[in-house]
């Protein structure tokens, strides 16, 4: 907290005219986030970039400026395999989540009453406040070879299917993390579409699917893409689903980070992975957002 000084100038003449003046009052509100974020958000990220050039000798980190870690990591096949696998998996998760969420969001936006919609959104918020780890553990127990799902399928004479330690398992995990969020974002963007647009399309004789494809989706484009971007970011950065439900087979970049810090003792190399991840995410997010906000021709 800055020292407390009270401005005792006659206040009556001040109105909107002083809005842009930088005084102690303004700074009191403006500075906390700047100071805090520079110290504890920008600081760590910049330090991490610097750290990717450090060296590790005898299990101790030494400050240096060497390309060794970058050369080491980028020359390894397993790094690039993990990279493309992670991108692939996150993309798959994004596509699956967006496609599965759309009919639900569409229904919530257009086919139910406002109060049902409110309740549905409230229900969808609940999972955010349950432990993601606990939910993952539940899936672990459900999907196991001798688990609940296979036991139930067994009654129907099906299975057993191998679901744990597969891509399917990872995707279920990602869905657990992202599904509610994507449905909410999609629902909100669909619900905000100007209804008259849709009616106009129908009046012009467009079929249902045609209306959805050429009117609804373009009109809600921004929200749909933002939902997808969040889904991608969350899946790309999550280590729990691919580890506990995907069997870490093969590991994704977040698992690689944990491996290299916790097991390999190589913070600088983990930093290389993290920096590559950050750059990738920036490119993906920037591309997606510019598409989202591009004016339709």
């Amino acid at each position: 907290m800055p020292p407390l000084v009270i401005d005792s100038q006659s206040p009556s003449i001040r109105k909107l005219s002083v809005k842009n003046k930088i005084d102690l009052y303004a700074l009191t509100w403006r500075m906390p986030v700047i100071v805090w974020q520079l110290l504890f958000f920008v600081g760590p990220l910049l330090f991490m970039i610097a750290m990717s050039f450090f060296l590790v000798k005898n299990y101790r980190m030494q400050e240096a400026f060497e390309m060794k870690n970058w050369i080491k990591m980028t020359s390894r096949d397993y790094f690039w395999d993990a990279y493309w696998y992670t991108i692939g998996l996150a993309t798959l998760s994004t596509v699956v989540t967006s496609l599965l969420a759309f009919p639900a969001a569409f229904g919530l936006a257009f086919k139910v009453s406002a109060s049902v919609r409110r309740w549905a959104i409230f229900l969808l918020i609940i999972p955010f406040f349950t432990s993601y780890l606990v939910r993952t553990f539940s899936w672990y127990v459900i999907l196991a070879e001798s688990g609940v799902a296979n036991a139930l399928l067994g009654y129907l004479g099906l299975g057993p299917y191998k679901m744990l330690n597969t891509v399917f398992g990872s995707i279920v995990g990602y869905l657990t993390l992202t599904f509610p969020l994507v449905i909410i974002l999609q629902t909100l963007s669909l619900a905000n579409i100007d209804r008259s647009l849709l009616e106009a399309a129908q009046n012009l004789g467009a079929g249902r699917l045609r209306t959805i494809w050429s009117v609804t989706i373009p009109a809600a484009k921004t929200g749909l893409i933002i939902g997808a971007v969040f889904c991608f970011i969350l899946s790309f950065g999550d280590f729990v689903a691919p580890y506990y439900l995907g069997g870490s087979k093969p590991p994704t970049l977040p698992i690689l980070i944990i491996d290299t810090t916790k097991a390999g003792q190589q913070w600088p190399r983990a930093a290389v992975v993290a920096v590559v991840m950050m750059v990738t995410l920036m490119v993906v997010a920037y591309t997606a957002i510019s598409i989202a906000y591009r004016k339709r021709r």
Partner: protein
Amino acid sequence: MTNHKKFTRRKFIKASTAVASAIAAPMILTSRKALAAPTEINMLGWYGTAEPDMVAEFEAAENVKFVPKYYAGGDNMLAALAQNPPGTFDLIHTDAEYARLLIESDLVDELDPSDYPMDDLMHEDFMNFPGHWNDGKLYSLITRYGHLGVSYNKDAITREEAMSYNVFWDEKLKGKVGHFDWHLPSLGEISLLNGNTSPGPFDISEDAWKAVQEKTLSLKPQVGGYFDFGGTFAGLKNAEMLAMVGIGDWVTGILERDGAPVSSVVPEEGGIQWTESYSIVSTSTKKDIVKKYLEYTISAPGQVKSAQMLGYPGFAVTNAGRAMLNEVDPKEAMRTGQVNGDANDPVALIKQGRIHYRDIPKQQSLEDWNDFWSEYKNA
């Protein structure tokens, strides 16, 4: 105006007090706790080593409280050391091959062997265990050990089949072979399968190392996943994995006690031994009480606790410990072969030359092995 000023000031004082107390609260609370509570011993150890079944008795007797930080795998332990400020830990529970690194880095204190019943240790190797000693001085106290080999589901394969590491390549285990996610035990076993028994699976030439890598990669199609302790444990129990590379009774033992159809054997090609010990951290301010705990762990009751540990079982290292185990828990003694004259007596296995002590690679760097392990996982 004056009124306003006063209220405003009060408001702000209130607000800043709230923020200040949010900032100060952790310090106040932690420091107060430290005064009131029993002496806290910060311990870095394998999972389960500071759980109540192990330490409650000692805690009650000495008015101490163990605060554990658990890890799995020696590299993991080194990372935890690096990750926490120096002076964080008082006591380190570690594997012999990593104890050596602790000693080399001057992190742990010298121990006086005459404080402990070294003469009562069950094998002469234990009295002078590589990694625990340096320049004829003792730094780490042996407390328990175990053997790694083939761990398997008894419903899926027979004990005879499991008696060779080749079983991992068996068609019926496709996708059902799990790895404990640590390079040393898994690669060590493959090295044994390749016949690297003399001088040992971890002391291999470049060519032999290449061969180990190739052999390991050929196992890839069989592999169902790479697991931490919890995953290994749950995978075997769920029958999600039918065989596991790189583990032994320390995992299957818990499940077996629980009645699950799993077991571990030391195959014909030989097995690997893990050997755990305790060291006192040089920067500790509680060395006297920590030393007392070391004495406790190697006493007969301490040895029995270690053999029965809920986290994972380990063999007793002293004759007195084994004798007491046979007395108080003959069932567990039988299950693990810790009965003098038993065919599976772990000490007898060592004497037959079938056991190789786990070590860090001699001719390659630890990093080479670690690197290959990452490569293998991503292959």
